[in-house]
């Protein structure tokens, strides 16, 4: 199976970018004149899980969406600074944001499978990204993606059923399968389990750890225990009096949750914030 070669894909295959999958440098994000996120510099390591935590309104989701230019779906959104992905600044004028999103996929808080069959949910994404293989190759792709999302055993006998017929947790895993079917380098997850029951949540967390063997994951979560359970690194964002979010502290998750360096971080994770 081959994908149509695009500029980013070519650059990725030739550039290992060291230990980092993606790096933000002095990144500021605006909605119109409103500064939502202020001068963030952040290095995300490859095949690790990085959690972004912080109080409501501090720009966590805005920061996450900046990694694949999803903020630009808001007409007034714009950014300054750089986001370097395999040696390319994805905010360069000649970079197509749609192409960026093929390599940096996203899973959202509310599961949003297409109103199609389970099979088509996976196949459709591959097809519009230039899949040119045979039917049996597509079958293999679908199975591989569903296996990778730990959903195959539960749906293998009903691939022609609607994706919407699945439970919430299964739908979210279907969305993950859909994302990994096009083999992104990075998966962004915006509170992927917050709409799910506790058991489904734990399954998603275990899946994330499994996925991290092959993908880089950045996850926004309000659930600190979840961040502590799943992530290797944690970035704590907060906001100043100007309501602009900024990165207060970044470090290994063990250290952030047992002995943070900043008092504000300590106050937040011990639940004494504000």
């Amino acid at each position, binding site marked *: 199976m081959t994908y149509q070669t695009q500029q980013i894909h070519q650059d990725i295959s030739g550039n290992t970018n060291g230990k980092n999958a993606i790096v933000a440098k002095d990144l500021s994000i605006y909605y119109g004149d409103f500064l939502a996120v202020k001068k963030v510099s952040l290095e995300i390591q490859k095949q690790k899980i990085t959690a972004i935590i912080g109080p409501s309104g501090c720009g966590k989701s805005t920061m996450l969406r900046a990694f694949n230019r999803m903020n630009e779906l808001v007409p007034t959104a714009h950014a300054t600074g750089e986001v370097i992905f395999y040696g390319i600044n994805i905010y360069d004028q000649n970079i197509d944001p749609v192409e960026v999103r093929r390599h940096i996929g996203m899973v959202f808080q509310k599961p949003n499978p297409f109103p199609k069959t389970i099979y088509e949910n996976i196949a459709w994404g591959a097809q519009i990204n230039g899949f040119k293989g045979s039917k049996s190759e597509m079958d293999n792709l679908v199975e591989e993606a569903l296996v990778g999302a730990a959903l195959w055993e539960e749906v293998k006998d009903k691939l022609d059923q609607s994706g919407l017929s699945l439970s919430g947790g299964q739908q979210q895993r279907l969305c993950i399968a859909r994302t990994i079917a096009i083999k992104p380098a990075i998966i962004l997850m915006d509170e992927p389990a917050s709409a799910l029951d506790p058991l489904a949540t734990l399954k998603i967390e275990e899946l994330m750890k499994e996925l991290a063997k092959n993908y880089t994951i950045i996850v926004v979560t309000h659930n*600190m225990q979840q961040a502590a359970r799943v992530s290797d690194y944690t970035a704590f964002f907060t906001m100043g009096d100007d309501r602009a979010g900024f990165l207060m502290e970044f470090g290994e998750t063990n250290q952030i*949750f047992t002995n943070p360096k900043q008092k504000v971080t300590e106050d937040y994770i*011990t639940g004494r914030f504000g």
Partner: protein
Amino acid sequence: MSAINPRETLDRSLKEILDEILVMGSMVEEAVKASVNSLKARDLDASRKIYLGDQEVNKKHFELENRCITLIATQQPMAKDLRLLASILEVITELERIGDYAKGIARINVLMGTEPLVKPLIDIPRMADKAINMLHRALGSFVAGDVESAREIPKEDDEVDYLYNQVYRELVTYMMDDTSTIDRANYLLWAAHNLERMADRVTNICERTIYMVTGEMLEFDHTDDELDMFERNL
């Protein structure tokens, strides 16, 4: 309505547990003091009571351990709260072991039966006084999160070690002079050893205070004398 403390339950529970640590500390301080006094006075009845009283110390240990585990499960403490709970679990174990030392001294008194002490007790009560005083202050430091005091108290362990070495040399001399004193001298040596170990455990409590406040795990260095021992024996 006044402002809500979002960790009211956790904070209140932690304070209650810390108060109970002081209670448990008092129990073992009293037990050590009483065990040495009863040894000095050869009061076997008192020693029996101390021996049986250790069950209350053990009960307190389990009760506090249970409360800590429940808090960890239900409150998901992080950072300093988590270090505090982890340290409390260590400290109550140290106190339980010190309680065992008191029980051990009481047992020694009973084992000696009606035989007289091989010599009047002078340094052993001094060791006990010193170790009890260290423990009392160490627990105060732990509850208050007083790192300065926690760094100072372990230095006093050297005094206890010095007294122990003195007791050891003296009792060995007795044993060499008169082999019929070996059993009784050994009993006193065990009693002194228990008190020496008690002071070591107080040092551990101080280490936990520093860890709880700063996140730094450290062990207080051995004295130069102890390190010289390796040089001499190689």
